[in-house]
């Protein structure tokens, strides 16, 4: 007898089936969207959510009592109940009115031409031309050369890339894409010296089409700085940022 009462109490405390479905669905969505790193593409999330929905559909419909448990409260809610408290009835009406309007807003936005700017598919580090691919610095790694590189960097590069090499020089704000941050592990730490030599020598206009050269404010320094001085600047950029050039492993 006691066991029977306990079972019925446990049953009473169970989360209603519709709430279970919603909790699992939202939980899976939040997990896929925010927990998994690197972020999943939205097409993949859509696919997983479709599978989750199908799975939940099977769970709900496989037994008569879960189907009843799922449909019952929804049917009750839709049908309404004049004996319920007034806030409950008002809220039911609010939901019934809200749903068509949400559908309306959604339709309006789908039909309105997009006001979002074109997607910027710029490749940040495109492949260098063959002639620049395997160059090595001919300049000896000496304190004097590093100091000379620092002087040149301050004169030519720091207005945009900053004295701290963090890409936040006094003139960085007006340019899109912004000047590179050399301290960041994603820029020169990932690149070979020869790559920097190419980028400094030919500047933004030297980029291939996938690098969107028309946007870059990086000057074509080969017209103004001698090659040996460009190598000294590169030497200082690595020294000053604490990174080492990447080499062929």
């Amino acid at each position, binding site marked *: 007898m006691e066991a029977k009462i306990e079972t019925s109490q446990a049953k009473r405390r169970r*989360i*209603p089936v*519709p*709430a279970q479905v*919603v909790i699992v669905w*939202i939980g899976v969505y939040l997990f896929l969207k925010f927990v998994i790193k690197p972020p999943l593409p939205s097409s993949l999330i859509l696919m997983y959510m479709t599978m989750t929905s199908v799975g939940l559909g099977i769970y709900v419909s496989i037994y008569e009592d879960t189907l009843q448990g799922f449909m019952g*409260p*929804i049917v*009750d*809610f*839709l*049908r*309404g*109940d004049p*004996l*319920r408290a007034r806030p*409950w009835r008002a*809220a*039911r009406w609010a*939901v*019934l009115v*809200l*749903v*068509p*309007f*949400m*559908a*309306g*807003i*959604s*339709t*309006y*936005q789908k*039909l*309105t*031409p997009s*006001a*979002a*700017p*074109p997607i910027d598919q710029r490749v940040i580090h495109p492949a260098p031309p063959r002639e620049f691919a395997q160059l090595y610095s001919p300049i000896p790694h000496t304190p004097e050369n590093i100091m000379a590189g620092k002087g040149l960097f301050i004169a030519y590069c720091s*207005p*945009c890339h900053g004295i701290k090499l963090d890409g936040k020089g*006094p*003139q*960085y*704000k*007006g*340019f*899109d894409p912004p000047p590179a941050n050399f301290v960041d592990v994603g820029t020169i730490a990932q690149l070979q010296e020869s790559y920097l030599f190419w980028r400094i020598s030919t500047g933004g*206009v*030297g*980029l*291939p*089409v996938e690098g969107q*050269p*028309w*946007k870059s*404010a990086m*000057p074509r320094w080969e017209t*103004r700085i001698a090659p040996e001085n460009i190598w000294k600047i590169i030497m200082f950029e690595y020294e000053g940022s604490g990174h080492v050039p990447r080499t062929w492993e």
Partner: protein
Amino acid sequence: MRMKSSNQRGRQTIVFLVTLGLSFFIGGYPVMSFAQESGGVVVFSKLIKGDVPGTDPMSAVWDTVPAVEFPMSAQVHWDPRIFTVTVRSVQVKSVHNGKQMAVLLIYKDPTNNPGDGAALEFMVGDKKAHFAHGQTMVQVEGGPVNIWYWKNADQSVNDMTAKGFGTLTSQPQQDVKGKGSWENGEWRVVFSRSLTNNDPQDAQFPVGVFQNIAFAVWDGSNNEKGAQKAVTSWWYFRPEPHADPMIYLYTGAVVLLVGLVELVVVRKLRRKDRAA
């Protein structure tokens, strides 16, 4: 048998709360994306009725248009460079009426100097052009740029073309009007033209299409002239398209249809309940 147990009531309350939450969860997305529409990278040219204030930078029409702010940098890209400029950001507004468009620049400049100036730059044609006067690119064949250059000295606007350094020339067909007005340390400079025309040297602005735009400002009292100026690289410009009346029709139809479906479902449930 209308009386329900407390168990059922609790269950219904939870269902109600979850449904309400879900409605806002789903509905919240379009509402939020609505609010985020105007970013800082696009000048949205607002569609207005009547004349555009093409030569009136002080017109009340401008008060009805939101401004977008773009930071500016000293031109350190090509010689002769400059390292300190007066104007560090520019606010931009734009309107059009389906035929004429106008762009207003607003920026702080403590002095009204004859050497003051401002310019807009656009790409011409389908080829991408470098923001620095359409200068030659090594691996990409670029196109020309169209520059609208306002000078304070004679309050003129010059409709110009460039494709590379040293090629900036005045166009034979001048299509741009404009005017600058200085008050309390602030310039308001307006440029205007027809959205589209038949001049192959000109940028074209079909409604709803994104065009590239860049800005330049000269402060004469800081000896800024020629290449020595405050600049930006490319951003976007888009004239607002005409609203398609069919969109409202479809939206209304969807609202009615969903409402009708709800009504039918609720009625059917109630009828079933009564029959039971």
